[in-house]
């Protein structure tokens, strides 16, 4: 599974960047439709849950995201 | 078991307790304060007998908060207090008005300001009841003048609180609360229950349109009600910034009471066509009642509802009377409002007999004042 940042909700607080122990996230460079520098999942392959199905572990980013902007999606799924 | 029909000899506060139980009271939160303590004491004993809950809170703010909470659980709830307690409750009374919570507050008035005369009667909280909380809102208040009326009007208070979803007051005072008298419990007492959301209405009491009093979304029934004291739209979404929504909400809260004055207002009239009218309410009317009974030149309009003010009978009395004397146990609170209505109706001479200190005006004092006015 890979984490996906929802640009509709992200307010660019960068808590995910701080929390992720595997450094999957990095600061955004483009302004999101809501006017924030939304975080980017730059290294999804570092994530503990990379290629993992069933019960997920870690999940610090999902639990910490104050704006409910991060969710899990299967690797193959197209997301924008 | 609530009281069976028949005759009883009870104290005013005890009559209030029994009336509350007859009305289906299920939750009471109280804090000791003279002279209302007997209501809390009585309900502490009686409520567990009928399967209700009694809770003694840490202060009056907590009492009124707890009964609002209980009311949203779908039960009838009540608290009892006196002047200083009413002052503490004001914020939550505004909250109840804004969130449209049915609840009853029995205020057994005592002399103020501040601690004042804890054991003596007064009518000093009349304006505080109506205008105490900030913002524009309406409440319903009844002023009983006997043990029997304490019973009858407490039941009415519960019925109107449920019907209009509004905080409702029973404004008695130390005189009525501690007076013992005959109580006649009739067999056919009309009890109004809440119009709940999602429940088909069967009671003819709900003749108020939904756009004024919306059905009550009781908690725990899947209504997903978001109750808030902030300005909210009809779907209970908070909209503190929208002038139109605020205007619509607050006007409806006021309209649901003022447009239903005819239904809410109760009064008692002695010698209606007199040239000399006394207007009074509660225990301040004791002396006036005696004067009007003895002298058929003197009429008495005794208000049982004081909020919203029964303008109709005042207007009618004022259009026929030359003199109007307002008897109150304060420095003149309802007087100014009565004067406004009476002046509009064409009466020129409206005077006040203010009596403070704890005793109702005596018949002698009322006669003396009438003589001073040139009425008799």
């Amino acid at each position: 599974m890979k984490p996906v940042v929802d640009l509709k909700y992200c307010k660019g607080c960068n808590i995910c960047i701080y929390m992720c122990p595997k450094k999957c996230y990095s600061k955004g460079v483009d302004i999101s439709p809501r006017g924030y520098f939304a975080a980017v999942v730059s290294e999804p392959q570092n994530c503990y849950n990379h290629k993992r199905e069933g019960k997920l572990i870690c999940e610090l980013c999902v639990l910490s995201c104050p704006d409910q902007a991060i969710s899990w999606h299967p690797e193959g799924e197209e997301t924008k | 078991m609530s009281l069976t029909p028949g005759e009883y000899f009870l104290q005013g506060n005890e009559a209030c307790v029994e009336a509350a139980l007859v009305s289906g009271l299920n939750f009471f939160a109280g804090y000791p304060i003279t002279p209302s303590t007997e209501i809390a004491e009585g309900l502490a004993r009686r409520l567990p007998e009928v399967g209700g809950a009694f809770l003694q809170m840490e202060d009056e703010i907590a009492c009124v908060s707890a009964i609002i909470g209980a009311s949203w659980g779908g039960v009838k709830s009540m608290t009892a207090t006196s002047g200083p307690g009413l002052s503490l409750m004001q914020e939550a009374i505004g909250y109840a008005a804004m969130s449209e919570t049915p609840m009853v507050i029995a205020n057994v008035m005592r002399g103020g300001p501040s601690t004042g005369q804890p054991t003596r009667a007064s009518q000093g909280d009349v304006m505080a009841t109506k205008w105490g909380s900030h913002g524009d809102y309406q409440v319903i208040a009844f002023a009983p003048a006997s043990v029997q009326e304490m019973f009858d009007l407490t039941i009415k208070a519960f019925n109107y609180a449920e019907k209009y979803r509004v905080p409702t007051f029973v404004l008695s005072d130390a005189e009525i609360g501690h007076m013992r008298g005959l109580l006649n419990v009739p067999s056919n007492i009309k009890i109004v229950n809440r119009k709940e959301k999602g429940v088909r209405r069967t009671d003819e009491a709900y003749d108020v349109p939904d756009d004024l009093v919306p059905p009550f979304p009781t908690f725990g029934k899947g209504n997903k009600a978001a109750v808030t004291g902030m300005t909210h739209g009809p779907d209970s979404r908070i909209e503190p910034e929208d002038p139109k929504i605020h205007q619509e909400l607050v006007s409806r809260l006021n309209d649901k009471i003022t447009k239903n004055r005819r239904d809410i207002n109760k009064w008692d009239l002695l010698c209606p066509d007199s040239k000399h009218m006394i207007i009074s309410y509660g225990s301040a009317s004791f002396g006036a009642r005696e004067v009007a009974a003895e002298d058929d030149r003197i009429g008495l309009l005794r208000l049982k509802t004081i909020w919203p003010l029964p303008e109709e009978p005042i207007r009618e009395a004022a259009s026929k009377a030359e003199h109007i004397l307002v008897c109150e146990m304060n420095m003149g609170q309802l007087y100014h409002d009565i004067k406004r209505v009476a002046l509009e109706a064409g009466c020129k001479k409206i005077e006040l007999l203010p009596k403070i200190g704890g005793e109702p005006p005596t018949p002698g004092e009322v006669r003396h004042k009438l003589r001073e006015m040139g009425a008799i």
Partner: protein
Amino acid sequence: MEVFDFYRKDRWPHVFCPGCGNGTVMNCFYRAFNELGWNLDNTVFVSGIGCSSRIPLYINADALHTTHGRAVAFASGLKLARPELDIVVFTGDGDLGAIGGNHFINGCRRNIDMDVICINNNIYGMTGGQASITTPHDFQSTTTPYGNREYPFDLAEIAVAAGANYVARWTTRHVHELTKSIKIALEKKGFNLIEVVSQCPTNFGRRNKMGDASIMLEWFKENSVRREKARSAAVDHVDLNLAGQVTIGEFVNRDRECYQERIGVEKHGEKH
């Protein structure tokens, strides 16, 4: 239940500032609630006034957003009227400890069944950053421009002393521990308090050289000490709350009989 079955999606995004800890607590609460498999129809969320007290309005359930500081009193009445409902109170440090301090202490004492989640951000955030009862000593706020001259209040210890059944304190850096504690509290009877030390980068951090949420989280991580260890530290315990360190962990877990059991209203629900 998906996260947006639990929360009201039509009200998203919520009002909280970027980096606010309230959203983190919302995630943890949703996670705990979902893992228990509870029904939202049987739960009522009560709150007072403040940033954290807005949370119930975002939950897809019955919510009572009340006056400032009185949430515990409202919840007490509601629980006694409808003992079959589960009551969760969301509140903040100013709401619970300052204006509602009396209701809080007596709520713990009375031990009426409810779960209180106090999001302690050390500041009055909604009004723009005034010092609260938990602002650490010497820290800046708009009402303490020369540094806070007072000492902070230890909400969790008060709850222990006043008789709450379960008391725990975590920070928003400890999301898994927090989720676990919320789960324990939800399942437990009696008055349960979970204090979450949370970041307010906008109004607290910004004035104290921690304007970024991640700096504040790092501060929590560096300064939090488990309660077992904090007890042995040779420092005055009252001053510990955030001035030097945050005491975290479970403070108490006991089974005092709760009020509604003692007065026997437990079976009231059958009437409804």
